[in-house]
């Protein structure tokens, strides 16, 4: 029951979308396409890297380069792409299961390293693709949810924002800022799964879910303040929690890795010389 036929745009193919009616991921996809265009990025220079899940199906709707990887490993793949060619605009995307369950190890280490990557996490608090089991971010009864924003902040992400699929303009603006951030930027996108999930805070079934706007008057460089916002109980917050700059991961800077045969012979001969043994 595809939602709608996407219009062919710079970033989006035409054809049926793969998501259920009302799925937040479809909205996130639209917003991403708009933000990419607004940031002046061309499909040819963009690589969108995902894991596996309903959210990761965005790769097949895109007209850019993309990797639809394996579940939970989008970040290492993306880091490899960016290291090999730092000129590319690399966007990582996927579900909360991908990011916070099977893939959280990579998330922490990417946050620590601070490469110039933007990660869009489509958080429906569940594993949509496998029929809606609660994910680590799921808020319900006895289940203790992972404070994903808090973990990101603690791990060293330099840009942490949260948006909601049902507030597209704000989401687009935040994604735009993330794309411009010199370092690892994460936008956690509350993106309801109307088919399976009836969780707290993001469930559109009960009308438009409430969110709390963070506003921008606070000191964006104050990590403890950002953490206090992330930890606050009640309806989820939306907005930019934290933004600082620190040195980016050196490996993903510099120029593209190319194998240029005309230059390398001399260097290789010198390498061989290092290991040379001559009878004297």
């Amino acid at each position, binding site marked *: 029951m595809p939602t709608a036929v996407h219009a062919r745009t710079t970033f989006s193919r035409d054809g049926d979308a793969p998501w259920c009616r009302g799925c937040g991921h479809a909205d996130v996809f639209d917003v991403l396409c708009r933000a990419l265009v607004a940031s002046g990025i061309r*499909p*040819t*220079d*963009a*690589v969108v*890297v995902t894991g*596996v899940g309903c959210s990761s199906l965005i*790769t*097949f709707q*895109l*007209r*850019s*380069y*993309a*990797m*639809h*990887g*394996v579940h939970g*490993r989008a*970040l*290492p*793949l*993306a*880091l*490899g*792409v*960016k*290291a*090999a*060619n730092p*000129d*590319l605009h690399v966007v990582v995307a996927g579900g909360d299961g991908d990011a916070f369950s099977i893939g959280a*190890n*990579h998330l*922490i*280490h990417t946050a620590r390293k601070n490469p110039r990557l933007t990660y869009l996490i489509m958080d429906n608090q569940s594993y949509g693709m496998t029929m809606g089991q609660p994910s680590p971010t799921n808020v319900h009864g006895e289940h203790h949810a992972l404070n994903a924003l808090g973990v990101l902040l603690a791990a060293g992400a330099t840009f942490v924002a949260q948006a909601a699929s049902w507030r597209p303009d704000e989401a687009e603006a935040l994604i735009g800022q993330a794309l411009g951030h010199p370092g690892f930027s994460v936008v956690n996108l509350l993106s309801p799964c109307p088919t399976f999930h009836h969780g707290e805070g993001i469930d559109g079934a009960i009308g438009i879910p409430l969110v709390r706007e963070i506003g921008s008057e606070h000191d964006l460089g104050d990590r403890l303040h950002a953490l206090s916002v992330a930890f606050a109980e009640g309806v989820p917050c939306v907005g930019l929690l934290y933004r600082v700059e620190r040195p980016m991961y050196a*490996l993903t800077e*510099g*120029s*593209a*890795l*190319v*194998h*240029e*045969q005309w230059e*390398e*012979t001399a*260097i*290789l*001969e*010198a*390498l*061989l010389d290092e*290991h*040379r*043994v*001559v*009878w*004297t």
Partner: protein
Amino acid sequence: MPEDLLSSTAWPLGSRQLNQLDDSLIVRLMGVGGDGVMTAGRVLTEAAALSGLEVLSEATCSAEVRGGETMYQLRVSPSTLVTAGDRVDIVVLLDHEADLAHREDLLTGDVLLYDSVHDAVPRAHPPGVVSYPVPMTQLAEAAGAAIAKNVVALGVLAELFGFSLTNIETSLRKRLAAKGGHVVASNLAALAGGARYVKEHLVKRDSFLVPVGSARDETVLLTGNEAIGLGALMAGCRFYAHYPITPATSVADWLATHLPLLGGKICAAEDGMASLGLAIGASYAGAKAMTGTSGPGFDLMQELIGYASMAEVPVVILDVQRAGPSTGLPTKYEQADLFSAVYGAHGDVPKIVLAPGDVHDCVHVTVEAFNLAERYQLPVILLSDASLALREHTIPRPDLAAIKVVDRVPFQPDQAPYSRYRFTDSGVSPMSAPGQPGGEYVATGLEHTGSAFPSDAPGTHQAMTDKRFQKLARLEDECSPVEREGPPSAAVGLVSWGSTQGAVREAVRRFDAIGMPVAALYPKVLWPLPVKALTAFARSVGQVVVVEANRQGQFADVIAASTSIRPKRVTLYRGVPLTAWDIFGRESLTH
């Protein structure tokens, strides 16, 4: 040392057994971690190489970071060497703990050199063994380099057997330069102290001398792991990712210094999955990429190996095998990852498995690994092992001009919309890289159509599976390095893969010496199996015998599965390399 002995340059060949029928000298250094066995061995190896000799060494240490036994054995010869030997001429004990396990290797006339600090009275050893106690620890202390008893031992070896003191000095200076003048000076004093002690206190009672070297063709001295790094660079590798694991780590160490010289990058990942993910991502973006690991990390990579195969991304995965399963024996030798390399990832996964047989192969088979990965756009697994990793060998300097480097079939922008996985005769489809207009596509592990769109239609899966396997159909004709040696027809035909090659070669020589017609085949591409070469070989011999260092006879099984050959199996899985004697001395082989 008595002048008359030193002036004799010919290597005196006593009445030795068949395994000693050659002109080489074998020195084994033993100690526990911290004794400097490895350093002394490497210095002696380099010194001998600088003297114009062929040198081949074998080293092993314990999994314990400290306290375990370390062994370094080097064999020097004026002519070609294929193993570090299955006998020993001279044993140097830097620590008494290291003695016990190996004493039985000593025969009448062999030499035992040891640090007399441990024993007031010379310790028990087999009768007929010539033993020289040397107060190495005291001599080191006297030289002002308390921990340099290994260097003292080098001085002793030089003086007693004729290793070149000058060359030892050259090698030592190079290694110690960074530590400052004082360290260099005290070590050279230790070296001199060892030599002087021999002159002043010892009478040579053995019959060993280093053979005399001569000018050789351009030669390089490399460990297997360095050779793999070198091969990778030659093949155009510009990205290496890894997570530390013994015995693969030294590839990363070598590349960390050398990759950047060629504008390449090396990345230490957070785990094995990440390291392969990084390499696949880099390759997708256009770089030739490799990751390196050993068994436990290799297990973790299986899912992404399947992904690379499905998404048709070239990538080289180096597995420097250690003894398994699980954490196993982390520093020990085994060739038991073949099954997991060939069959490891779930589903029908086309991929290629290669194994170098010696240090020379470590260079050239690694180049081939990249060439095949790029040519066929799939994961290539390179199976090295703990023996190759640590051994040093003087090999002919690789001729860069002669090395053929293959690049992937590039995407050519043309009128038609790009179809990344379109069907072709060879199964190989042109591959674009991000940044190329018109080449946009999704690399996906889902089954997909020619234009990379997911499809679970029955026809698609069958056709795409065939397309991916089609790439391998011509492999054996296009490239499948395999060496054969021995008489054109023989009663026994040995098949060996990876580093058992050395022992098998040496065994073949011995069989030849006693007039037994034994041939051998050394395939370097193990999977897809070189069926034609194996079948032809099998037809030329009476009985095929597969020699390998694992319990299940893994390569024998792979051969039996895909050919009509019913091989016999020689399997050893002791955690140490197989020797020529393990083959030559095995009665059942030839009966």
